[in-house]
């Protein structure tokens, strides 16, 4: 599998379309899933997915066959997603002031309720852009607030508050489902 992947990568470096298609077929579901998690709607996710894949094929010669190729691909996609969000942020400035009184309330634990993946994805996509981005980077990419702050060009405090607010919104959503089910 690893040898096959290296062959495909080398084919991609030589701008061979068959190698590019193979890479696309292997990694597109995971990468498209990331785009869906980070972007508010499917159209935006498609646009970013397309642009990011083109970057992958253009920069594939920079891959040094060290470490996970999937990780390398994910990094490119996440950077592209962050870039897109930062552009959006400029267009519609979202003032988010850190409030220590409300942002550091102890997180309430919820009863386990089986929720479909699609539903969870929907809840995430309903979050405001910056909350969603911070939540995704913190929960799925296991990034620290300092890294998130650097990437999103915000303060560490803002990153923390964004995460807490995102969690609270999601909590309310899940509780509403629970209440709906119990009712």
């Amino acid at each position: 599998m690893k040898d096959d992947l290296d062959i495909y990568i080398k084919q991609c470096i030589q701008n061979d379309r068959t190698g590019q298609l193979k890479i696309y077929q292997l990694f597109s579901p995971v990468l498209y899933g990331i785009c869906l998690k980070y972007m508010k709607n499917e159209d935006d996710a498609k646009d970013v997915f397309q642009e990011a894949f083109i970057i992958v094929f253009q920069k594939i010669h920079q891959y040094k066959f060290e470490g996970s190729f999937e990780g390398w691909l994910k990094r490119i996609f996440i950077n592209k997603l962050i870039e897109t969000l930062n552009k959006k942020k400029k267009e519609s400035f979202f003032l988010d002031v850190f409030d220590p009184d409300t942002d550091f309330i102890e997180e309430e634990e919820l009863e386990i309720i089986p929720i479909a993946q699609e539903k969870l994805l929907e809840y995430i996509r309903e979050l405001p852009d910056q909350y969603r981005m911070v939540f995704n980077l913190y929960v799925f990419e296991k990034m620290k607030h300092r890294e998130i702050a650097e990437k999103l060009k915000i303060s560490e405090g803002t990153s923390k508050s964004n995460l807490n607010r995102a969690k609270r919104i999601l909590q309310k959503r899940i509780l509403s489902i629970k209440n709906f089910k119990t009712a």
Partner: protein
Amino acid sequence: MKKQKIEDIFSSIENFSSVPPPELWTKIEEELNKPKKKKRAILWWSAAACLLLGLLLPTALHFNSDSSIETINNGSIEKSIAVDENKRNLDNNKAISNAENSPEEESDIVKSLSLEKIANQSNNSQNDKTHRTKITPFNSNNIVNSSISYPKSNKNEKTNHTVAEKTFITGRQHSFNSSDNKVLQSEKRNQNQTVAEKTFITGNQHSFNSSDNKVLQSEKRNQNQTVAEKTFITGNQHSFNSSDNK
């Protein structure tokens, strides 16, 4: 019932994957074919830029050359002004040094300067006078060395020269060189070149050395020069050396 945090609930979609719509690959393929055109466009743009530069450079150089001529002209004017200013400063320095001397010395200086002017005028009338004076600083032993040099062109033309050297030093280590009235008068009569040097040395252990031999030798060659040197030494341990071509 078991409880868990929100993060744990959402961790189930950590490796969420979804198959993208098939049209996306065709779009990517199309995009991948585009960069070649972009490269060509870059080439065209670079060629156009080079052409533009080629056209603009000669005009820019043309304008620059005009401005440089102007600056050169300005520079020459400035230089000439600076030279005039230097001359004035030198004259002022002479006047200041004269003022610093004693009244007796001043009178001698005034006389010698006036004589020098007369000598210069007479020399200018002959149109073959070049005046070069080197005033060397005196050393700690109150020794004044003066050197007089003549340009070669004057030797060839066998012209008459007048070289006068004056050194006015005030304070403890005074030394003074001036041309003598009598010598200058004789110069006028003979219409020859005169190299006169006077040294007035006051104070203790004064000594005087003149390096006029070379000058005198050159003057001998011209057979028209007269060198007169008088040294007046006042104070203790006076010594007097004079050399005359006469």
